[in-house]
């Protein structure tokens, strides 16, 4: 199937993403969900704001999924990222990989989230009790 890529301001829908990659040939589905935490580097976080260079982000995510598909032979992948203001506990990113066997799904999912964090132009501003700043990884 064609990979699903969602870049949206709306809350992410994990169940719909899992349903979208499900198939009778699938034996394992790995979901990574990144959620907003209430603390970072000793600070109390109030909320986060995500911003993206959307056209390039979409293109880079397509490339990363294609790499994962080639490397692990996975064929059923969904990647969703949310932008704008996110509250504590809300999901900012969801990666779903479904494959006949679990090992490939785990490895591909890990690769996609790690590579996305390092190379996709999406930025995060932490709004903490002590002030706000763009986080540089």
């Amino acid at each position: 199937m064609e990979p699903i890529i969602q870049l949206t301001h709306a809350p992410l829908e994990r169940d719909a993403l899992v349903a979208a990659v499900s198939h009778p040939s699938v034996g394992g589905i790995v979901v990574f969900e990144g959620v907003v935490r209430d603390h970072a580097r000793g600070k109390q976080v109030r909320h986060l704001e995500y911003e993206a260079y959307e056209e390039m982000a979409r293109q880079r995510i397509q490339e990363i999924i294609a790499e994962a598909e080639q490397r692990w032979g996975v064929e059923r992948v969904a990647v969703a990222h949310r932008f704008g203001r996110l509250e504590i506990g809300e999901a900012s990113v969801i990666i779903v990989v479904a494959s006949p066997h679990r090992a490939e799904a785990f490895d591909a999912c890990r690769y996609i989230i790690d590579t996305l964090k390092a190379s996709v132009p999406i930025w995060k501003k932490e709004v903490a009790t002590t002030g706000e700043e763009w986080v540089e990884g």
Partner: protein
Amino acid sequence: MKIRIRYFASLREVTGQSDELLDMADGTSIAEIKKDLVTRYPRLQDILERCLCALNRAYVPPEAAVHENDELVFIPPMGGGSEPQDNGAS
């Protein structure tokens, strides 16, 4: 010739705008454009030193030359490193 430069995150806040059209000679290097930006926005200096360059949505080195209608974006480091020891966000 004109190129479009788009600003995101900290660059957007420092420049106070999301994009602008720049007029320059064809073949100007990104490094030269950077110098010009620092003159106009001194607070960009530190940020630009940490940025990668994207020309028409692909990463390029700062020596790359720009051409008519190109879209140039300086990409500051992305946040959210997930190594446990940095205590950063997931």
